[in-house]
């Protein structure tokens, strides 16, 4: 008897639970602006999605520091109203307030904060939780655009996409032109030079870029040969892997670059000294050609990965082939990027972002 009751309860509960899905809808007046066709623009984003925007974004939330650098560079920085915590700490010159931060990272996004900022568009890279964001923001009529500014392979597409979203095609063109100018200069000068063996380390000891990564591509573009250019894990498009310290000694790089995490705050000299001591103090490194010849460089990723690594490519090219670039001043390009494109008024100079330590 009691069991029969229990069964009845089970059936009731299940049927009630399924009925909960049908919520009575009310008169919604006109909250989502999907009907407004005047000035509407349609973009195809980095995830291949076609996204409709009511018009050029007047208010945007942009996650990821590279995305914010691009928005700033094309002249749309004043329209960004919400950021992630990492952008806040990496890009102090943007003066991001705490109440403009909507997430710590690219995953756990506070959608309520996003909604409160009332943006026209929400922009995040493809390694962010964009499917979830699109679902959660749909009912608020906030379109989600995937733009992956950290990806070397889609630089032009990303800049064009942001230009469309913010209605800044000239700004986008200017940024792309600066980029093309740098790579044009590099390819002119390194043509016919002998490739130099390069080890590019990023953030972690022995973490390096493999073919497919932006780092490998700028090494090749700068007239170098990635000493791990023969490895291919075939996975992650970022293609970064930790290598065996012993293999590095065998492959004996002629130039070593260690790039630490990006931050626009000027790096203190003691940080360069600490990293330098760590690098040259590693077992066996005293015998490396790069260390013997003094070709060890420590850089801040904000500089060398800036403008989709174009700045880094130029610096690397001048280090690999100083003769071919005798009349080129890469510091001038970094300064232009900082002042002209990022709008930094008190640029601390190139020495605050990269140093030769070998």
């Amino acid at each position, binding site marked *: 008897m009691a*069991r029969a009751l*229990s*069964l009845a*309860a*089970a059936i009731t*509960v*299940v049927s*009630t*639970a*399924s009925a*909960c*899905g049908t*919520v*009575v*809808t*009310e*008169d*919604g*007046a006109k*909250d989502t602006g999907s009907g407004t066709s005047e000035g509407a623009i349609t973009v195809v984003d980095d*995830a291949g999605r076609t996204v409709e925007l009511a018009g050029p974004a007047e208010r945007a939330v942009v996650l990821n520091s590279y995305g914010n650098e691009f928005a700033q560079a094309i002249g749309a920085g004043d329209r960004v109203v919400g950021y992630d*915590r990492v952008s806040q700490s990496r890009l102090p010159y943007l003066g991001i307030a705490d*109440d403009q*931060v*909507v*997430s*710590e990272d*690219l*995953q*756990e*996004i*506070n*959608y*309520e*904060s996003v*909604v*409160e900022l009332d943006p026209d568009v929400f922009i995040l890279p*493809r*390694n*962010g*939780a964009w*499917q*979830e964001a699109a*679902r*959660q923001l749909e*009912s*608020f009529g906030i379109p989600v655009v995937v733009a992956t500014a950290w990806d070397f392979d889609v630089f032009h597409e990303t800049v064009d996409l942001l230009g469309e979203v913010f209605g800044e095609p000239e700004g986008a063109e200017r940024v792309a032109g600066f980029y093309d100018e740098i790579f044009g200069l590099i390819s002119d000068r390194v043509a016919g030079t002998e490739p130099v063996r390069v080890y590019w380390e990023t953030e972690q000891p022995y973490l390096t870029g493999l073919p497919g990564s932006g780092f490998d591509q700028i090494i090749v573009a700068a007239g170098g040969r990635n000493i791990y250019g023969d490895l291919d*894990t*075939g*996975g*992650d*498009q*970022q293609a970064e892997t930790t290598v065996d310290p012993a293999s590095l000694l065998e492959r004996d790089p002629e130039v070593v670059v260690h790039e630490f995490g990006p931050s626009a705050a000027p790096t203190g000299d003691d940080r360069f000294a600490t990293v330098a001591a760590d690098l040259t103090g590693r077992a066996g490194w005293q015998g490396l050609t790069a260390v013997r010849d003094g070709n060890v460089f420590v850089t801040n990723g904000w500089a060398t990965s800036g403008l989709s690594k174009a700045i880094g490519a130029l610096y690397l090219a001048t280090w690999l082939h100083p003769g071919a670039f005798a009349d080129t001043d890469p510091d001038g390009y970094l300064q232009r990027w900082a002042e002209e494109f990022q709008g930094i008024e008190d640029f601390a100079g190139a020495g605050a972002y990269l140093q030769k330590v070998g």
Partner: protein
Amino acid sequence: MTLTQTPPREAAPDAPPPARPAWRGRPAVLWAGTVLAVLVTGWCVTAGTADAGPADVWQAVRLAVFGGVLREDFAQTYSIIINLRLPRVLLAFAAGAALSLAGVVMQGLLRNPLVSPFTLGVSPAAAFGAALAILLTGGSAGSGSWLVIGSALGTALAVSAVVLGLASAKAMSAATLLLLGIALTQLFEAMTAALQFVADENTLQAIVRWTFGSVNDAGWQDVTVVGAFALAALPLLLWYSRDLNAIAFAGDDAAKSLGVNVTAVRVGLIVVSVVLAAVVVSFCGVIGFVGLVGPHIARLAIGADHRYLLPFSFLTGGLLLVIADTVGRTVLAPSVIPVGIVVAFIGAPVFINLILTRRGAAQ
């Protein structure tokens, strides 16, 4: 210190009555718990970055249920409550309740208060199954798709078959079983981590979501599915609470002699609890410790009789997760701390306390 100290176990039959209550008012405790759960859950809906007081919540819910005209100045608050807060809070409750039920059942059947979907490695295995399905479909199968649920369920069932098969074949002690669970947890976490070497970052971000628990993705569909499983499981498990009591308290042999079909009940209920855990994992990722702490708190409040323990664990597990999630989205607001991380801060100390105070009983 005298040499002739009498150990407490040898207390004479006519010793003074015990200090512990005799769980007389258990139905009352259950009702009080239900009311408390509704109140706290309702209050949690009012907490968050955006301003929305109890009156707003009430109005929004009334509108959503009965319909009516939505004022334009209320539209955003309405949408925040109905589309963001409510599903999130309800998903947290449903997930916590389901995990807690799964924990009670596993603990009763294995006669071990330290086991749970998480400590047996079932949840991490389900997370690996979900991640694998996402990887193989190139990220097109998202959270809560049936393929992901199926894959999570398949892996979880396979692992629990292995764990419990080994446990019964080797007549494993509680400690050995837990060590086995730790090994499996490590293995599956490593396997999930290894997937990132073959995943591109677009798929990777979808996989990473499964390694820590979160209800940030909550939508009404998630609430419906997880809620339906949790609500359907409760009466089903209650139906077997008498059998569960016999197995948990008297042991397998005595339970058989009490007329319980131990093998069938055990297999059936383990499957139910693994399904619960796998469904939660495929929507919310791995949320550890709820399946352990929920039942533990419930046992302290209402005793170990499964007829009351099951529904009360449903409440404690649900409340625990709702509160943990509310803490996670308010304490560092506007930042959101994944609920899996918050609950571990509560769960780990309780787990350690359980291990340290475990009676010699839990063999």
